[in-house]
């Protein structure tokens, strides 16, 4: 995965928080993997934020599928 300098810089604060919390569990060899995943999450969240939401877009906090009313 190619990571731009901008993306790398954007996830640096999160990386530092994770390293402070998990210490040696995120060693130098694992750092690249964590950075890639942080960038992946960042890009996915950006795609989600591009959807223009309105007051009608309430969160689906209790998910229960319902059959649709059919147009026959």
């Amino acid at each position, binding site marked *: *995965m190619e990571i731009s300098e901008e993306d790398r810089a954007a996830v640096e604060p*999160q990386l530092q*928080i*994770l390293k402070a919390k*998990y210490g040696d*569990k*995120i060693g130098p060899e*694992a750092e690249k*993997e*964590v950075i890639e*995943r*942080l960038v992946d*999450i960042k890009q*996915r*969240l950006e*795609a*989600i*934020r*591009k*959807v223009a*939401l309105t007051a009608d*877009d*309430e*969160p*689906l*906090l209790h*998910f*229960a*599928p*319902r*059959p*649709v*009313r*059919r*147009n026959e």
Partner: protein
Amino acid sequence: MSELTLEKYLVAGVEELGSWLRNGQTSPQELVELALTALKERAEPLNAVVNLAPERARVEAARATESLKSNRAGPLTGLPYGAKDLLATGGGLPTTWGAAPLREQQFDEDATVLRLLQNSGAVLTAKLAMVELAGGMGYNQPNASLTGPGKNPWNPERWSGGSSSGSAAAVGCGALPFALGSETWGSILSPASYCGVVGVRPTYGLVSRHGAMALSWSLDKIGPYARSVSDAAQVLQVIGQPDRADPTSSGREFFFRPHMFTNHRWRFGIVEAEVENAEGEVGQTVEAAIGHLEKIGTVKKISLAALPYAEVARIMIYAEASAAFEDFIEAGQVSGLTAPEDRVNPYSFETILAKDYIRALRVRHRIVTHLSEVLAEVDFLVAPTTATTAVPIDQPFNLSMGQRRMTQLSAASNLAGLPAVSLPVGFSRQGLPVGMQLVGDAFGDEGLLAAASRLEKLLNDTK
């Protein structure tokens, strides 16, 4: 002495074996021994088995024999089956969740679905392999299970798919007439497509998840694999029951009455972009199968709105997995997982903020509404199950699948909790199966399987 040979057993389905049992042509004990032999000779070399359960199977087979003698037998009585190893089993049989650190994990009692199958007389014969923690740690390769990479029954150098790898492979190689798998996003349907079997993902809430490993509470579903649609429907008829132990249980029961749909004509919506995105041979094979749909209904091309389906699905799974496996992750147990990426990926999941998760839930609402609008115009959405045939077992997915890893329809329909079935519709020139998925309306599982069964018959008639 029975005339049932291993060769005959390997190609027989639920209906055929059940008929032989009820006619006295074989016995539950004989089927268990054949299944154990087939699992050892055929499924274990594919890395499809975590643990065999011979003692439990022989006890359940003896009980099934009594049911058959007293005419209390149902369609599954005496039939051996296997369960994905995220379904809890009591009695000292481990439930590993496919993860090496949980190799010895024990539960006190069976998951609800296994109890229902036991009550129906079915015989649990094996716990089947799966991708570690159902793939929730973000694996990027087939080698991500304590049992090794799942090998494909049609070509062991190809992957069986995931995360229900062993369930699909065990049915695909003939070792078992049916098995249970689970899907959060693609984990029943994709292995069904790769292994050339039927896989059913029921509507969210139709099948109890009590006793199943939680990866994503708002997305997890349990469903059957079998060699035909009607065989899978027989299994769903047993496990599709209300369950007070599962707070997401819909309270509905599943019935399969295909005679009610004998002359029914349906409206099929082909998700054109999915056919175009598929590998050439996959797209062509699915297009040929779509031709048959015109014999049982109308066919039109449809498009899904441009919404971030995959992004929402991934964020929801990461966030919920981060909570579901909080103790496992914080204790550093992920370091014992098989795939190197699974040992570090999960730390990053906790950076997803509550407001990000809520935003994803708001977009999920938009997605559910959109699919409801689409399904008001057609009865089923149709697309290739996977964009490729089974990928090589020794390559990371970003190389073998690239941008074709998951279909949009798979993400969208899982987010909406809709039922789906994948059925084999042909083969590539390399002899690998191609699967086609039909997605139906919420709790329209019966009509969905009736339509898939009609299509299956049309395909079989042209062979």
